[in-house]
């Protein structure tokens, strides 16, 4: 009995996730912001912190300094420092910037982390893929919101 319940609960959950998760091409922008969560599941700030520094995931440190990460040796200077960024922007704005910064900053060098088309000549293994998953975007946004002065 108990087993059956667990299985049912799991499948309901995974169905819900699949339905709630917004595909890259379905993300709705409003003046560069994305109001709705991409997953309906709250972001995990500590997972977001890891995604932020990971060279194979966000690699946000390639271009941004961040005083919250003194343990990381190298911080890039291509974009503005992200220290205190949680005071400067709302969640919806930050989500928009991470999903596709070009919607907020015209012609920016900052990559769009949640698009899966519209780029030219991708390496085969990345074709049709986004840099981050929907949940990773939510995690990074949750993390950015913790960066207060």
């Amino acid at each position, binding site marked *: 009995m108990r087993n059956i319940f667990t299985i049912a609960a799991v499948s309901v959950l995974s169905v819900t996730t699949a339905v709630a998760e917004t595909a890259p091409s379905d993300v709705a922008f409003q003046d560069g912001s994305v109001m709705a969560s991409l997953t309906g599941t709250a972001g995990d700030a500590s997972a977001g912190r890891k995604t932020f520094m990971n060279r194979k995931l966000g690699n946000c440190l390639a271009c941004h300094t961040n005083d919250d990460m003194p343990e990381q*040796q190298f911080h890039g200077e291509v974009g503005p420092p992200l220290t205190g960024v949680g005071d400067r922007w709302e969640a919806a704005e930050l989500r928009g910037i991470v999903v596709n910064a070009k919607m907020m900053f015209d012609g920016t060098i900052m990559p769009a982390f949640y698009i899966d088309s519209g780029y030219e000549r991708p390496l085969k293994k990345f074709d049709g893929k986004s840099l981050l998953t929907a949940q990773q975007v939510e995690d990074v946004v949750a993390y950015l919101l913790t960066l207060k002065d």
Partner: protein
Amino acid sequence: MEFKTLLTSAAIVALSAGFASAQDDATLSVDGEVIKTRADAPAFAENLDTVYSGWHFRTGETQVLQMDDFENPAFVFVDQGVDLFDKVEGSEGKACASCHEDVADFAGLRPTLPRVENGELVTMEDLVNECRTDRMGAEPWKYSGGQMTAVTALIGLQSRGMSINVAVDGDAASFFERGKDLYYQRVGQLDMACSNCHEDNYGVMIRADHLSQGQINGFPAYRLKNAKLNSAHGRFKGCMENIRATPFKVGGDEFKALELYLAARGNGLSVETPSVRN
């Protein structure tokens, strides 16, 4: 050695200040010969005032390696080039030296390449392989392989200190335009163009790397990272892969056009071959 210490401490000051440290104002001389590492930008490079060799963006420790040919690790490979130049190969029983008695006669060639011949854009590698296949009856060398870079470094070295002066008009104009388009074209999953890093952001750090203008006056370049000589096309390929783009073919039309455009962006700089980079 006092020099080395000076350079290093300058770099440290710049780093710890944490600002965009841009290019430094050091002077590159090799065994007393001054190499021009900055020049007025060519008129067509409308977003630049001054062009800088990549040397200015390296640490003092990397910079000094290029100031003395005995310290410069590229010379191990240049020496291999000397041997290859004298090596008989192919059905005609000839070496490069059979026809080109003194490699020093190639002085003046590097600054003008790539160039257009009979409507085709040719690079140094093309010229070398043409001699191998058509004049020696030998197999062509792999475009970016170790034998090719050893010999192109040797030939390039004969022009060290001479000003780059690549033609961009006449026959070359259409190749130049093609190269320019490629330079500004965004590619890859990261959707970036060469210009995003090497024109818009040179002088700043991109994580652990200090971005230069991506000049090619020092190629083939010895990289500490892979401990060998690297062709310009090999570098283009690496940069494209870093932005998760499918690179164009090494030795192919796109990279040759890009090479012409980039070489010309460095018109006025000295040939620095073989340079040392990280």
